[in-house]
């Protein structure tokens, strides 16, 4: 058992890269100014702490391997040796104090650097946590330009974006490791952070505070894109949902409006206007369904609608009694909502 463990360890070592390319949800692969600052801090702390750890271990092993006379009377103490040890220990404590001061100051200035990220008139997003999905609302002075979507945030790359965090049920925590440290969404008061991505790309975030049965499946995507692409996306999102075009889509639309879907979901431009579940107006344009649980595809969409409780047990979406044809029609309609 021991041997297999060691073999596994040896086999795994090359799989632990030192930095970079560790996934779209990694703090070690920063893609924004705040996360870069933090990654630097992580490496610095790790380096320094590893050195301290090594030093302690070397001294310990050295001390144990010293050759000595055997089994003398325990109360005969080498006074000179102890005096020397006193000086060494005092020095080590002084070094610890110094180290802690340096690390505290580093943290303090790092914190200031991150807090200083900001800009004039940033895009403001109000992010609301629900069990277990994210409601995303783009704020604007003009009411017709406010926009609601879910589980996917689009931001202009290179620009700071203000994110206001709140919750209507339990405490969640917003965390996109590649861009920023985490911040809690707490019922009763709003938190805020400034998100900034250096380059276009897709970054995954996940709820980091235990929030109940489906805490594991509460993710969101942050899509950073160039300003023009972002504006294009924004304007497209403001428009009403596309009208169904084929017969199957029309059938799906009718089913949506006359079956349980309409009780919780909203599709702008139709009579579906509930806000209990995520807004589905441009559902098919998103990369994932069920808060990052499944990739967007026809098959996954059908699987999710047919039996959500086996994909995400405990989620609020109930199982509907749809026949095979009805399911196909609803999926065809939803897939059309680009």
């Amino acid at each position: 058992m021991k041997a297999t463990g060691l073999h596994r360890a040896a086999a795994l070592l090359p799989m632990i890269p030192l930095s970079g390319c560790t996934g779209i949800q990694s703090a070690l692969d920063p893609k924004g100014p705040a996360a870069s600052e933090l990654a630097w801090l992580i490496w610095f702390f790790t380096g320094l702490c590893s050195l301290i750890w090594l030093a302690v271990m070397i001294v310990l092993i050295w001390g144990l391997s010293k050759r000595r006379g055997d089994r003398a009377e325990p109360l005969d103490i080498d006074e000179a040796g102890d005096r020397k040890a006193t000086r060494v220990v005092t020095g080590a404590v002084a070094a610890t104090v110094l180290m802690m001061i340096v690390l505290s100051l580093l943290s303090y200035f790092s914190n200031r650097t991150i807090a200083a990220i900001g800009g004039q008139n940033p895009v403001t997003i109000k992010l609301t946590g629900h069990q277990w999905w994210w409601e995303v609302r783009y704020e604007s002075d003009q009411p017709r330009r406010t926009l609601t979507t879910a589980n996917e945030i689009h931001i202009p790359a290179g620009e700071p974006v203000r994110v206001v965090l709140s919750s209507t049920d339990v405490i969640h925590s917003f965390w996109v490791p590649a861009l920023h440290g985490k911040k809690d969404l707490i019922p009763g008061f709003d938190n805020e952070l400034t998100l900034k991505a250096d380059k276009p790309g897709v970054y995954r975030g996940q709820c980091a505070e235990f929030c109940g049965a489906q805490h594991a499946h509460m993710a969101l995507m942050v899509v950073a894109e160039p300003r023009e692409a972002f504006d294009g996306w924004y304007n497209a999102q403001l428009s009403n949902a596309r009208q169904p075009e084929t017969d199957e889509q029309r059938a799906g639309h009718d089913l949506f409006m006359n079956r349980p879907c309409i009780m919780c979901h909203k599709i702008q431009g139709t009579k579906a206007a509930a806000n209990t579940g995520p807004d589905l107006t441009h559902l098919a344009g998103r990369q994932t369904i069920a808060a990052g649980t499944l990739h967007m595809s026809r098959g996954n969409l059908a699987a999710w609608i047919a039996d959500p409780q086996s994909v995400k047990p405990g989620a609020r979406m109930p199982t509907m009694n749809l026949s095979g044809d009805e399911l196909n029609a609803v999926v065809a309609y939803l897939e059309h909502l680009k």
Partner: protein
Amino acid sequence: MMRKPASLAIGLALAVLGGCQREERETRPEPVLGESQQAVPVTALEPGGNRPQFSNPKAAQFEGNAYHISQGKTLFSAFNCNGCHSNGGGGMGPALMDEKWLYGNSIESIHASIRDGRPNGMPTFGRLIPDDQLWELAAYVKSMGGNVPSAAAPGRNDDMMARPAENRMPNAATQGRTP
């Protein structure tokens, strides 16, 4: 020495056994497809004065189950039942926290009322709400008048308080008195 923990365990087990069925959290209907087929009494006029009792296997699964009742409470406000029944106090629709039940206060009757609607304004939700969620709503409505074991009744919500929580309500039918 060992007899003591054993007897304590048995005592504890008996004490909480009553509660354990109320903790099951079955979220996937069984079978996945197929609605409960149920005869629905639509009138109170019955020969001999007694209403026939209809039972449904789902009634026992949902009635008195803390998890389902609390889901029903969430749905009650999500589906805006408050629009007519205002927190059970009644408005356009009848009050749900008193002892007066026009169509019966069994969970089956409440389920039928929600599923098929009732005259004078109660709409039909049969097609709009999946069957299990209807049962959850029915179980919750039943709890509004203090008509379920208080160990299963929901506590207060994290909202402004319009009324005492269901687990603090005396049974509406008896007002706390033994009948």
